[in-house]
């Protein structure tokens, strides 16, 4: 390890690509060839990573604590589902755009209204917005299928070339990986841009950002909208891959789940979403069916431990260990 760099150089270098940043994508591709029978599960993991990444933008970078992020995942999912079920719009890529648009608009609108509050009130309002959408999806069953949702949707081939693979999820997996890569690049550019820096500034010290004249609320609302659009894309990919939508895409369970995933992995550091989603979903996949109660107990204890001792998640722990190692 070299000596610590002066702050200016450090800042100028932050956004540069590191060699290890290829690894997640190489691993993603390798998994495609190594675990051909687990691709359905792999697709779920990729969708969850994208969802957690969208949350990282508001929670980790803009510092907005929300309990209702599944609202946007659900908005995207229902957009794609309803377009396919009622209007026969089954082209996936335009579906993604439509989902991003709808979820983004919901995010901008709700963010514009909600982000004037903070603390407990904001927490409650995000929860209420999500619950409201959930109840609406339940109530207008003519459009949304109500409690049962919309099963058995099918979509046109991606780019007109790749059929969705109902049995092995091969094309779904690669599709999800590609969408995740694109969205990740967007988020990466965003958080290292001046816009992203000002979000971090708002998270660290709102008063000072007001004092230097940054348009705090506008920045927060825009970040909230972009994050909502990304969450909507995640919801859309979920529906494309699985072919169904139901109320579970919108619930508190999904919102709390993605929050837990992001914090387990480490928020505000881009790759926390990856580590958290893989760790959480693999553990859940292997444990929750066989020992549901033990899984819940372990998860609860794990969360308490993270809150008390490892505030920056697994990646934060790894960082601390690495620093201790290199200090020797």
């Amino acid at each position, binding site marked *: 390890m070299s000596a610590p760099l002066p702050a200016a150089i450090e800042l100028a270098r932050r956004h540069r690509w590191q060699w290890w940043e290829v690894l997640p994508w190489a691993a993603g591709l390798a998994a495609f060839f190594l675990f051909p029978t687990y691709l359905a599960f792999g697709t779920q993991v990729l969708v969850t990573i994208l969802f957690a990444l969208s949350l990282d933008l508001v*929670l980790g970078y803009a510092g907005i*604590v929300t*309990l209702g992020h599944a609202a946007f995942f659900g908005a995207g999912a229902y957009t794609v589902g309803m377009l396919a079920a009622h209007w026969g719009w089954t082209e996936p890529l335009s579906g993604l755009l439509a989902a991003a648009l709808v979820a983004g608009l919901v995010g901008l609108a709700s963010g514009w*209204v*909600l982000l004037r*509050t903070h*603390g*407990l*009130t904001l*927490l*409650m*309002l995000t*929860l*209420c*917005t999500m*619950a*409201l959408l959930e*109840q*609406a999806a*339940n*109530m207008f069953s003519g459009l949304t299928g109500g409690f049962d949702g919309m099963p058995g949707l099918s979509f046109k081939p991606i780019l007109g070339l790749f059929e969705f693979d109902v049995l092995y999820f091969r094309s779904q997996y690669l599709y999800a990986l590609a969408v995740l890569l694109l969205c990740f690049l967007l988020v990466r550019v965003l958080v290292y841009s001046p816009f992203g820096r000002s979000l971090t500034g708002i998270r660290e010290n709102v008063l000072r950002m007001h004092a230097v004249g940054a348009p705090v609320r506008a920045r927060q609302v825009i970040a909230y909208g972009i994050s909502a659009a990304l969450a909507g894309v995640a919801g859309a990919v979920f529906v494309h891959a699985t072919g169904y939508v139901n109320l579970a895409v919108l619930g*508190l369970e999904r919102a*709390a789940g993605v*929050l*837990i995933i992001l*914090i387990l992995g480490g928020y505000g550091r881009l790759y926390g979403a990856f580590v958290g989603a893989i760790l959480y979903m693999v553990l859940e996949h292997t444990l929750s069916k066989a020992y549901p*109660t*033990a899984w*819940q*107990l372990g*998860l*609860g*204890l*794990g*969360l*308490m*431990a*993270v*809150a*008390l001792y490892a*505030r920056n998640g697994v990646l934060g722990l790894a960082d601390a260990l690495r620093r201790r190692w290199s200090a020797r």
Partner: protein
Amino acid sequence: MDLVSTLLGGLAAGMVLFIVSVGLSVTMGLMGFVNLAHGAFAMLGGYVVVYSMRHWGLPFSPALALAFAAVALFAVVLERTLYARLYRASELDQVLFTIGLVFVMIALVTLGVGPESQRVVLPAWLAGQTDLGFLKYRTYSLALIAAGTLLMLALWLGFERTRIGAKIRAAVDNRRMAESVGVDVGRLFTLTFALGSGLAAVGGGLGAEILGLDPQYPLRYLAYFLIVVAVGGLGKVTGVFFAALLIGVLDFVLKIYFPKGGTMFIYALTLVFLLARPQGIFGKHGA
């Protein structure tokens, strides 16, 4: 008559919400601690009541008292050992920690008692109906309304007329100022945390008849307790009282007349209300 009986049912549910939530409002107001595990204390109280009645043959009222004492004690231990470490932590850590605590309690109850829902067997003097002259109504619901009103009065007196109450009000309004004139806010918090959790336990026992009792209880009613506190205002006993009654009655009425979308109106109203008055019913703006 139909309207009156619907109203009474809603009031009874509202009273349960009040008894459970009031402690949450005061502790959140004092420390700004986001305690999502409050409902788990209510659930534990319900289980203590059911267990002590079934296995030790305790009558209903002593069982409630036991639930209060046991859960209050448990809460003090938790507060001193774990909660206290997180007072200066971020909201997010508090949310995470208390969600974790909820999961742990759900899992422990599931392991210890089982996932099925439990029934509280009401004593003979609370079962059946009471003739109010113009209408016969369930004795238990009437008793709940009476108990909730009495508790409200007692808490109000305690808050407005005692020295401790004055200290709590002072600390909720301005913690640093209260500390600098010599109020030990930490000890005050431990005390109110114990009291609030104990009350939640009583609410869990009293309300099991209406809200049910099973391991998923803390998650199912989390939003309700939080809505009551947010609408009522932090650290405001009267505000929480009226918010709980309002939401109890609205929920009850809407679920009867709009069984499908009833809950949606509650959320929509809460949303609009909180946007208009983020400080709660009686909150001062900019406080």
